[in-house]
């Protein structure tokens, strides 16, 4: 199945993209996508743990099951205000 992955701020600059469609296995969870990104993206390889993530505009943990068409984002430390 396919999910949309979004990148913002420092993650957008480090990956050089603001969004991509990724093929993931049926039954894949948020943490599985993060594990794949850690292998692919040098900037993420240094992370000791998964950053906050969101699925369909709500915070979601690594165990959250993904569905076809979900919008997934890994979020750099937020700094509004």
């Amino acid at each position, binding site marked *: 199945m396919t999910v949309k992955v*979004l990148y*913002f*701020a*420092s993650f957008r600059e480090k990956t050089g993209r603001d969004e991509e469609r990724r093929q993931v296995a049926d039954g894949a969870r948020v943490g599985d996508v993060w594990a794949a990104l850690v292998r692919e993206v040098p900037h993420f390889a240094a992370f000791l743990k998964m950053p906050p993530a*969101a699925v369909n*505009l*709500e*915070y979601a943990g690594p165990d959250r099951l993904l569905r076809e068409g979900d919008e997934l*984002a890994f*979020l*750099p*430390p*937020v*700094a*509004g*205000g």
Partner: protein
Amino acid sequence: MHLTHEPIDAAALLARARSSDGGVCVFVGVVRDENEGRSTTGIEYEAYGSMAEAEIGRLLAALAQTWPQVRVEIVHRLGRLAIGDASVAVLATAPHRAEAFAACREAIDRLKTTVPIWKKEFYRDGSSDWVDPTRAARH
């Protein structure tokens, strides 16, 4: 509706208090000229817009649960801001001041930790960097 690229008009926000409100509390966050000892010239704000709107909506709903008599409004500006520009405004109105102060404080504190907005600081030496509050907290 909570995010804007236009300058924030705090006076217009203040004018929205109701006649039943005895306490009106406004917090305005402003871009300052230094951070952690470095001279800054401005800030660029970026948001995950659709999620930020949803997250502010959830934040307002939670505040309404805690303080049913308080009405809170939040406006956050995005894009390139200069020193002195307002980046965020929170209005909390209530029959009495205690709840207005408390809800206003809670609103800005939670916004800073949960709403997906990021800021890149521009320094006087020409460099720039994304602000990471979790890094500052570890110092």
